């Protein structure tokens, strides 16, 4: 495969492990991609990290882990100690376990990523598909809508929506869902424009496939890998945005989230209390890093151009 070196260099993650794709041909896009991804050890590690975070989030959600988080486990501001697993990250101002709060924060972060994706992906896919497929004034309208939404800097739109819907988790879900569909819509539109005149779509039309069937049964499966690539970036953006919004006081109320913990930490640092900041930052760092690298690896593995 002659283009391998240049592709790796271009995507900038050569240092994170290479994939060899010379023997992968013709088993379907997703299976090819999976085979390629399995050879990328760093990507597998990232999938493992994401799965671990998801498992923790799920267990916290079910009440199997880190519950009750608001129990007083020791004195206020106790530094980390190995006396008990509850105090390995120390305690906060009320003597609550920072470790439990970090785990609870994982639940919030993952749920924000998941729910905002569930909102934004259907919007992005449908608008992009309709605009690209039908063209004409429908396309003009779709382009106008997403140009307009993307012209309002994301953070201002997030602040405005979260502020107007009232503070709390639902407002964050909606704000992130409503702002983050644009990039997917843009990609989908471009792909649908490319695919709509290809032979397989023309063939589908000639045997009487309806518009809906051509869009969702014929074209969509062929461009669905962009949704997966986008999902990774979406999760990362959502987690970062939740932290900022919670920090601005527009986010989660009465529950521990990484943003709330970092907000608390700004007054604690000068007293030498670093563990709450460290816990939330490190927890956030690894999951964002994993999504960052995974996004690149998924693009390498799924993008048929560099097959």
């Amino acid at each position, binding site marked *: 495969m002659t283009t391998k*070196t*240049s592709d*790796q*260099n*271009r*995507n*900038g*993650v*050569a*240092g*994170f492990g290479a994939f060899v794709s010379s023997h992968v041909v013709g088993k379907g896009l997703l299976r090819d991609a999976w085979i390629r991804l399995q050879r990328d050890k760093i990507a597998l590690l990232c999938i493992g990290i994401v799965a671990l975070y998801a498992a923790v989030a799920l267990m916290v959600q079910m009440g199997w882990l880190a519950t009750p988080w608001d129990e007083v486990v020791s004195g206020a501001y106790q530094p980390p100690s190995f006396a008990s697993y509850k105090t390995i990250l120390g305690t906060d101002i009320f003597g609550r376990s920072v470790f439990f709060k970090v785990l609870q924060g994982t639940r919030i972060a993952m749920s924000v990523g998941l729910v905002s994706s569930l909102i934004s992906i259907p919007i992005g896919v449908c608008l992009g598909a309709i605009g690209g497929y039908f063209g004409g004034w429908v396309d003009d309208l779709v382009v*106008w*809508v997403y*140009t*307009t*939404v993307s*012209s*309002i*800097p*994301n*953070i*201002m*739109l997030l*602040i*405005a*929506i979260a*502020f*107007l*819907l009232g503070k709390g988790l639902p407002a964050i879900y909606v704000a992130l869902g409503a702002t983050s569909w644009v990039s997917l819509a843009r990609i989908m539109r471009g792909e649908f424009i490319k695919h709509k005149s290809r032979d397989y779509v023309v063939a589908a039309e000639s045997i009487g496939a309806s518009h809906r069937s051509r869009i969702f049964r014929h074209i969509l499966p062929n461009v669905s890998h962009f949704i997966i690539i986008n999902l990774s970036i979406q999760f990362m953006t959502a987690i*970062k945005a939740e*932290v*900022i919004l919670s*920090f*601005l*006081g*527009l986010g989660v109320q009465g529950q521990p989230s990484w*943003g709330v913990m*970092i907000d608390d*930490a*700004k007054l604690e*640092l*000068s007293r030498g209390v670093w563990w709450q*900041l460290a816990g939330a*930052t490190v927890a*956030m*760092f690894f999951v*964002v*890093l994993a999504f*960052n*690298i995974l996004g690149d690896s998924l693009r390498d593995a799924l993008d048929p151009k560099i097959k």
Partner: protein
Amino acid sequence: MLAYVVRKVLSAVPTLFGVALIVFILFNTVGGDPTYQMLGRHATAKQVAELRHEYGFDQPQYIQFITYLKQIVTFDYGRSYATKQKISDMILDGIGPSLSLMIPAFLVTTLLSLGLALLVAYFRGRWIDRTIVIVCVFGMSLSMLAYILFGQYFFAYKMGWFPISGYEPMWPERIQYLILPGLIFVAVSLGYDVRFYRTAILDETNQDYVRTARAKGLSEGRVYFKHVLKNSMIPILTNIVIEIPLLILGAFLLESFFGIPGLGSMTIDAVHNSDFPVIKAMTTLDAMLFIFGNLLTDILYTLVDPRVTFE
């Protein structure tokens, strides 16, 4: 050239209208009537009616929309709920501190990341390239808040190299308060920028003209600085506009942490005080800034790439 500029300016009008419509729907329709929130729960009906009249909430929606469009054109956004000051004056006061923080920070970021990107592109695939790319990905994954809290704690509080927070309107006293927040901004944005520019530059180094330039015996320095850099200008310019929202977010967090009385601190105060008109005005202005930035780059494209005009 002129026809192109006019066409681009005209194409921004529907976007501006769309932004106005979205902001209006958010604040005046979804947000509804903030008078109860402002007066507290013990307000009498008379007080509410007076305040509603004062801010025009008793008008029909389309009149309110026209009023808002007038506000955009005349740059008169009324008065703040919290401070009762004119919002246009508050914005004019805030621009100076914000720009004196963000412009130098942004320039340093762009020049430094372009320099690093050229360096790693030159050494592509070697250990220096790999190391810098890995550091960049790690740096991108750390929250901006972590940079700020750590930077402020370590360099200002522990080491005492910079003031912890504060501001002085006079030059050159102002500078000492801006260095640390500026450096933190550079550190936050470097990771993403270096990677982006590296990709843009590497896309160019695989082109035929680079081989030709080398074949005719140009030095690597000339190849990179004269040919590659010039041809990468379009993605570089595009990235500069994409960074505007990051500049705004940076201004929010950095200004509020370091006590710089700019537009970012003003917006954060407005969020804390539920100051609707200020948030609305800032949302509108930031969107206009973004649209204007896009317009400017569209026009600059024609300067760096004359072919653009013929599209």
